């Protein structure tokens, strides 16, 4: 009898179109153009599987020549559904922005097309949505950035992280958040029980029944996550646009500002403090940028339960905002201009959230000093001049919602903030956050499969599956550390040896 030994050493892996050496990194993708009124959206891919992504979405034929635009139909690799027709680029490493193999898809700017392409990329093996600043960071590590460019990089990443955090907060405020948190808790419990069985099962009274419970929970979680993933976009309706929130003390004229901006009485205004008790939202187009404008209840201590809830919602809204318009009653301003910064500083402190650091909040804020019509003309001028040259404060506009005086000045200031916010590709793009969530949930689902695969073969590898699942979910809900696992172990079991 003959046996054939086939030496698989010689099976060199052939890589189509590529010249860069294989490196052991993930392939990442992200929308890299801004939102707002743009005809074309750019989706960027970087990493060793870039060629695969390009093939997957445009078919195996006719690879584009390096660094040359090619017009292709772009389709979903699984459903084969045509998503768009657009330009694709292939940048073999090291001659690319990140130094790795990269690809770009220039598609039509609508949200449906963009999220379709992001979804399609996320469905390919080895691809995942980029973390904040990851493209730039890779470029930095590849030595593709000069020192001066690096200087600004930290701030950029900071901004991206912040934008993602706010976006996540918005999404986490709903039912979805409740669902993810529940999964995370159940998964943490599963992991704690598997770990207890591994670390203490031999000496202490931890019965095999513990693992049966875990088996059930894991199977249950798998079912729920699959259903959720297939249910997908029908889930939570996400509103896109820059979230601008009007906040301030009662009776400063917040609702008047909303009405002025949308040129219709969207909110009830009255001279009675506490008129607005809930959040009033309206969609606007300001200078070409999509804006979701919210008016909130005036912030004050109150005994009225309904108003208290309104104040709570107002604070939550401010925390999730991309931009906060802090409205101040100008008639309360001290007459001595030198006292003004202290007065306004105290106001800002009362309105803006402290959790993330005040510096950060200040960068996302415009001060609106309303009721200028009630001030003497010379004080208006003096104050405006003073505010213009006080760099310690966020941009401030003195205006009158009543007479529209100073509105133009304010609009210029607002539009410049909006354009910088919309230039940031990650701010307020729910589709990207959603793609990220889907990728992490998928990761979680697959890792749970590892638990089941190894459950009866090797418990260490099975536990690894639960750990990976929790890590995946933790990227949405927040990290669970070793100490928290141990806390559950010692809470649920009597460890005596």
């Amino acid at each position: 009898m003959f046996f054939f030994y086939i030496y698989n050493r010689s099976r060199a892996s052939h890589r189509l179109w590529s010249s860069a050496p294989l490196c052991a990194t993930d392939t990442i993708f992200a929308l890299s153009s801004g939102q707002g009124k743009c005809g074309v959206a750019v989706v960027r891919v970087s990493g060793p599987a870039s060629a695969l992504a390009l093939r997957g979405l445009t078919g195996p034929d006719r690879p584009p020549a390096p660094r040359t635009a090619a017009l292709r139909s772009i389709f979903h690799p699984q459903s084969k559904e045509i998503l768009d027709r657009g330009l694709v680029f292939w940048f073999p490493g090291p001659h690319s922005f990140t130094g790795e193999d990269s690809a770009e898809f220039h598609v039509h700017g609508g949200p449906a097309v963009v999220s379709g392409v992001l979804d399609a990329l996320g469905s390919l093996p080895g691809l995942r949505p980029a973390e904040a600043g990851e493209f730039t960071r890779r470029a930095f590590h590849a030595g593709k950035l000069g020192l001066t460019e690096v200087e600004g990089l930290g701030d950029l990443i900071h901004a991206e992280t912040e934008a993602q955090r706010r976006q996540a907060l918005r999404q986490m405020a709903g039912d979805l958040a409740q669902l993810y948190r529940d999964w995370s808790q159940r998964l943490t419990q599963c992991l704690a029980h598997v770990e207890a069985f591994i670390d203490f099962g031999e000496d202490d009274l931890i019965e095999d029944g513990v693992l049966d419970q875990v088996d059930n929970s894991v199977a249950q979680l798998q079912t729920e996550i699959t259903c959720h993933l297939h249910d997908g976009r029908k889930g939570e309706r996400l509103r896109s646009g820059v979230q601008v929130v009007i906040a301030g003390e009662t009776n400063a004229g917040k609702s008047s500002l909303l009405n002025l901006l949308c040129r219709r009485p969207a909110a009830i205004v009255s001279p009675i403090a506490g008129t607005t008790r809930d959040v009033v939202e309206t969609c606007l187009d300001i200078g070409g940028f999509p804006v979701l404008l919210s008016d909130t209840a005036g912030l004050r201590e109150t005994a009225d339960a309904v108003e208290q809830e309104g104040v709570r919602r107002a604070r939550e809204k401010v925390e999730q905002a991309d931009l906060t318009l802090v409205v101040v009653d100008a008639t309360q301003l001290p007459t001595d201009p030198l006292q003004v910064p202290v007065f306004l500083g105290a106001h800002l402190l009362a309105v803006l959230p402290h959790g993330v650091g005040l510096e950060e909040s200040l960068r996302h804020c415009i001060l609106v000093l309303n009721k200028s019509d009630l001030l003497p003309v010379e004080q208006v001028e003096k104050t405006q001049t003073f505010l213009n040259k006080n760099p310690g404060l966020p941009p401030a506009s003195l205006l009158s919602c009543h007479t529209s005086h100073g509105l133009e000045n304010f609009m210029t200031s607002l539009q410049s903030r909006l354009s910088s916010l919309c230039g940031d590709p990650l701010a307020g793009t729910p589709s990207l956050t959603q793609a990220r969530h889907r990728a992490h949930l998928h990761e979680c689902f697959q890792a749970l499969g590892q638990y089941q695969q190894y459950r009866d073969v090797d418990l260490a590898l099975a536990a690894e599956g639960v750990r990976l699942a929790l890590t995946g979910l933790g990227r949405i809900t927040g990290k669970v550390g070793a100490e928290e696992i141990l806390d559950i172990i010692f809470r649920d079991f009597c460890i005596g040896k």
Partner: protein
Amino acid sequence: MLARRVLNRPRSLASPSSWAASARTVTACDVIVVGGGHAGTEAAAAATRVGAETLLVTQKIQTIGALSCNPSLGGVGKGQLVREVDALDGLMGRAGDWAGVHFSILNRSKGPAVWGPRAQLDRPRYRQFIQAELLSMPRLTVVEGSVEELLVSEPDPEKPGKHRVTGVRMADTGRIILARSVVLTTGTFLSGSLFMGQTTSPGGRMGDPPSGSGLSRSLKEVLGLRLGRLRTGTPPRIFKRSVDLSLAQLQLPDQRPTPFSFISNGTHCKPEEQLPCYLINTTPGVERVVRESLHLNSHIQQDTRGPRYCPSIESRVLRFPGRQHQVWLEPEGLTSDLLYPQGLSMTMPPDLQVRLLREIPALRKAEIQAPGYGVQYDFVCPTQLFPSLEVRSAQGLFLAGQINGTTGYEEAAAQGVWAGVSAGRRALSLPPLSLSRTQSYIGVLIDDLVGRGITEPYRMFTSRAEFRTSLRPDNADLRLTLKGYCDIGCVSPRRYEEAVRMKAGLSEALSALQDITLSPTRWREKLPQAAVSANKSGIMSAEEVLQYKDVSFEMLASAFPDVLGPYVEFAERLKIEAMYRPHCEKQRREIERILQEESLSLPQDVDYLSLPVSLSQEVRELLDRVRPATLGAASRLPGMTPAAILHLLNYITRTPQRDRSAERSSTPDPQNLSDESRDSFPCVPVSQ
């Protein structure tokens, strides 16, 4: 052989008298190790292996290597530490193989990554082995006595730290001994007090004199270190003849004992001579006695932090009332007439201890040889240490073992090895090194201690290691022995050669396995036991087939005797390697990322509060408080932001070359390192 070595009385045994004779004179050596427990003995041995002239100071030579608490070694997580200590050529693994009387691999059914090699030990044999090793070790002198005070002088201004420790002053003779490094391993003796019932007495272990308060004062008042207080306890020892073992459940050892050490050919104890353990359960009566005696039990009433695991029987029944709790009766040795009741640590008055024991059927007539007691002791908050275990503010002072807030022999030994290596290297002007948590449990242990600190006595669990499936007991030699010889310098040539041979054998065998490829149909014919699925497409290598649950390397070797026959001695390790390799490959990427960040050291003298880098006030305060040694450690801090990490990365990259040179020096080459470049970095990670 062993007996002869002890009887020979090598030079160090004669030393105490000669030391006494020359009292009050000043002597000097490279490294002084204070304490002869598991941390101290490993530290002294490691320092001498590195090449330093070392002096071990202990209260009684007779108690060197004593097992003060349980007569056992290893277990889940702890067994991994023993294997790693052994891979770095430490004593513990070989001592366990010499003294073990009951060997078993815990978690045998749960996957090799979490197997827990464990043994019951014969107390005198363990002590004898450790003493014989130490007393015949070149460059090591052992002296009896206790240290009253640390000698402290002005710091070397070129290095971080407010003080420099230059030696010790002995208590009885007042003699001064100078050294470049001092390792403190005082265990529970630092301001230790013993508790039993309502009586309290000073001391760190029953039967031993308390240590002077001088050391505690040196640490607290002179060096300004932050201390905390912890508690632990030990059970009463029971006369075996008074126990009705027919009422206990027999627990037999493994039929084929597995040695701890990579270089032991077997265990000293013959398989058939091994002793059994016994399992019994508590009764409601036990709970009753605990509750009735609470007012007479001052240890349990104190609020000093005790461990949540290995707690006393008092805290077990109070926290989980109405349950049966397991108690293991463990042999104390081949000739001992005592049993050690694991799980019955208690601090009530002795008469009540007897009453409690007698509530358990098998112990109805139990008599005790010594009652259980509790200990409270000071520890130094370990966040004040570098990853080399050197005290940040005191140049030349190293701490290891319970003084750092850990519990357990294995945790102590692991730190001992590393403190000994670090102290020895410092004395010889070699750059300090650190072990990464991605490559060893020792690294996990030290990183947790110095990075996060402790709130209860720290014990190793496998769940603390993120890369548990890569850090297995079977591959500790591949992970540590080669580096231990080439980079660290603490491994003997003999052990190194064995590890090299092992590594070569394994990798040849793995390529041979990968080179055998057949179609699934052919595999089914060749190896019917493997149950290769008919639906599988493509060709399969023998390595893939070895991953099947029911396939052993021996099966493959008998199917392919010419190609695989030569590797049968590696059979078990090859099976494990094949199982875990795909998963370890996946982890490698994450490990590399962490190592990359860990290779970027953060200067220790930097003033974070005024650093001209864009950092938020919160992050500045966090960095100032914790002072992470590397970018990797910084990124693991809760509250750290990606942007802050990038700014730090940018800062390091821009910092002048003086700091960069140290990073490249993972191969020790002291000549090329100016003191300046070395000391802006606390530790250089051991290369991969």
